[in-house]
């Protein structure tokens, strides 16, 4: 492989400015370690955290590692991840949205109401569309108030938290005597209660693997053709293999869940991956996404660059509420019903904690959409593990609080050390 990296080096030498790109695997590792020590820790705390969580719960309760529990974990993660994606966007512009959990409740309730047999009887696409439209509209209204009336997002969305929890309560009690409305539509129930067969799972995986490798290779060839710097081949291969191995392992493990019934990769996991892919593309590859980061990093610079800062801010709150609606639909499907408590409980804490634990800075301008999934994995595996151990709710709350605090401290410390080493 060293011969390949030498070729890469000669490609780099054609540049007018010495692009200091490490050209060996070891060089890449050293470069990474230097960045970590300077506070640019990326997703390192999550990986360490996940290993620690797995070690603790796995040793206390062997069932934690069972394929059955793995599939359960994926199902538990889905709804929170969808909401957390929206939270990531809000955090990127250094704002907060405390209303997402109850907005997700509103979304789930509206969909369920529209689906009621013999009453509304809407077809499922219309019911889902109505729910998402309403949640997006909620985000628009909150966003307009925050940007135009210049009220801090904390206060506006706190008001939203109260108001939307009331709306959930009103809707569920007015339209049912028991406060619980059951979903009967098969398609909607299948969102979070169906699984790919093992064969389907592997076929989809193969498709993904081929597409992933092809797109990375094509991009690499394009860069090389233009004499722009690329990673050494060894790093390229290692990264590709690592991702394919992790995702392949997940498919294999989920397919092993066959007692008492054969399950496999949950359909909702695929939906989440598509959402993550789409929003990652928006955040990192489009002009709109670039403006979001700019507004989060330096609103004044963004304004002077001719960016309509208010418009970006409002769009971000629309995205947050829209994704909350998506999460609400997933959660309603998983519970097969909505009740007076839709959007309540730990949901808000979990969604915001997922985004922060995943590595999205509370101070704006830094973070990735994928951190929503990583953080949700951490927070939900803690919750899952404590559930298996049968811990009382009091202990669960304390542990959840500690995990969130730890994540915020890691963010704060890494930010401080980034500032002292000049790479804020």
């Amino acid at each position, binding site marked *: 492989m060293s011969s390949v990296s030498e070729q890469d080096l000669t490609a780099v030498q054609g*540049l*007018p*400015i*010495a*692009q*200091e*790109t490490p050209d060996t695997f070891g060089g890449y590792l050293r470069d990474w370690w230097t960045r970590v020590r300077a506070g640019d820790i990326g997703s390192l705390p999550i990986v360490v955290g996940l290993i620690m969580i797995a070690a603790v719960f796995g040793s206390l309760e062997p069932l934690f590692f069972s394929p059955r529990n793995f599939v359960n974990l994926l199902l538990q993660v889905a709804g929170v991840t969808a909401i957390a994606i929206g939270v990531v966007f809000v955090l990127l512009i250094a704002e907060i949205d405390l209303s997402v959990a109850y907005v997700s409740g509103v979304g789930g309730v509206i969909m369920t109401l529209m689906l009621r047999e013999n009453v509304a009887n809407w077809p499922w696409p219309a019911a889902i569309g109505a729910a998402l439209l309403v949640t997006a509209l909620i985000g628009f209204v909150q966003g307009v108030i925050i940007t135009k009336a210049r009220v801090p997002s904390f206060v506006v969305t706190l008001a939203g938290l109260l108001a939307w929890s009331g709306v959930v309560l009103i809707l569920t009690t007015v339209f049912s005597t028991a406060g619980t409305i059951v979903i009967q539509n098969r398609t909607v129930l299948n969102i979070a209660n169906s699984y790919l067969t093992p064969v389907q799972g592997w076929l989809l995986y193969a498709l993904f693997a081929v597409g992933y490798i092809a797109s990375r290779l094509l991009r690499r060839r*394009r*860069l090389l053709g*233009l004499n*722009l*710097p690329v990673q050494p081949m060894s790093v390229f291969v290692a990264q590709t293999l690592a991702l394919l191995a992790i995702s392949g392992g997940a498919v294999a493990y989920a397919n092993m869940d066959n007692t008492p019934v054969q399950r496999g990769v949950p359909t909702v996991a695929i939906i989440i991956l598509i959402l993550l892919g789409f929003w990652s593309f928006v955040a990192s*590859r*489009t*002009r*709109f996404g*670039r403006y979001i*980061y*700019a507004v*989060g*990093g*330096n609103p*004044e*610079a*963004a304004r*002077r*660059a*001719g*960016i309509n800062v208010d418009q970006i801010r409002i769009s971000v709150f629309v995205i947050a509420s829209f994704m909350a609606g998506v999460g609400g639909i997933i959660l309603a499907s998983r519970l097969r019903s909505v009740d007076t408590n839709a959007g309540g409980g730990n949901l808000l804490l979990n969604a915001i904690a997922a985004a922060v634990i995943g590595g999205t800075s509370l101070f704006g*301008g*830094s973070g990735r959409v994928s951190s929503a999934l990583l953080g949700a994995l951490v927070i939900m595996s803690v919750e899952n593990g404590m559930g298996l151990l049968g811990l009382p709710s009091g202990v669960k709350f304390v542990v959840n609080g500690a995990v969130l605090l730890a994540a915020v401290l890691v963010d704060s410390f890494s930010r401080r050390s*980034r500032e002292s080493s*000049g*790479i*804020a």
Partner: protein
Amino acid sequence: MPDSPLLQLKGVSKHFGAVQALAQVDFNAREGEVMALVGDNGAGKSTLIKGVAGIYPFDEGEIFFDGTKVNIHGPRDVASLGIEIVYQDLALADNLDVVANMFLGRERTTSFWRLNEVSMERACLETLESLSVTTIRSVRQAVASLSGGQRQAIAVAKAVMWNSRLVILDEPTAALGVAQTRQVLDLVRRLADKGLAVVIISHNLHDIFEVSDRITVLRLGRKVAELVAKETSQQEVVQAITAGTLDTVPGMAEART
């Protein structure tokens, strides 16, 4: 007329309430030359620049650009004329890399609104090379990791990237150390040598004499002198700034009354 100024302000005035910030000021900037704008605090330097930048309109006076009278109604008009202003705070987004900052607000895209990163990176490298900015390690590093001088260089490169013809620099060396000041002054000189008109505001007379061709001195909202750098001395400029020797400029003595 070969020596006609690119930017010409004739008799511009601006007042804020009862305060006369600028009174009947003429100001010129020529292509291929560095014009320094000096004066004590409150002399009207910023007011003059903000008027040109379209932040607010002048109360009276005319602006000529490239020989034709122009009306400036906002920052957009200014940019379309080919005037770029590098403010003291630079307006860079620390969390974005060099390429993203250089193209902020004017990104190149391909199909599906995708950012054309390759094309932007190449253009960025070419611009930095044309300005001989060689101290940047990688154009893909976040601006936060750059030194003050490098940030200034990026801000200037960003300004000249858009085929601008006039670049105005507000205190570009104020926060810099000796070596970095050197780099920025060299860069300013190169801009003029490339044929751009450059206006530099500074309090540091040493820097000004090193880099500029002409010096305009403002005092209490009035222009008190326009001097050719080679034919004057720091002594004379200091005197103009503090005492306001209107008499050194022909025809200006009457304006005092």
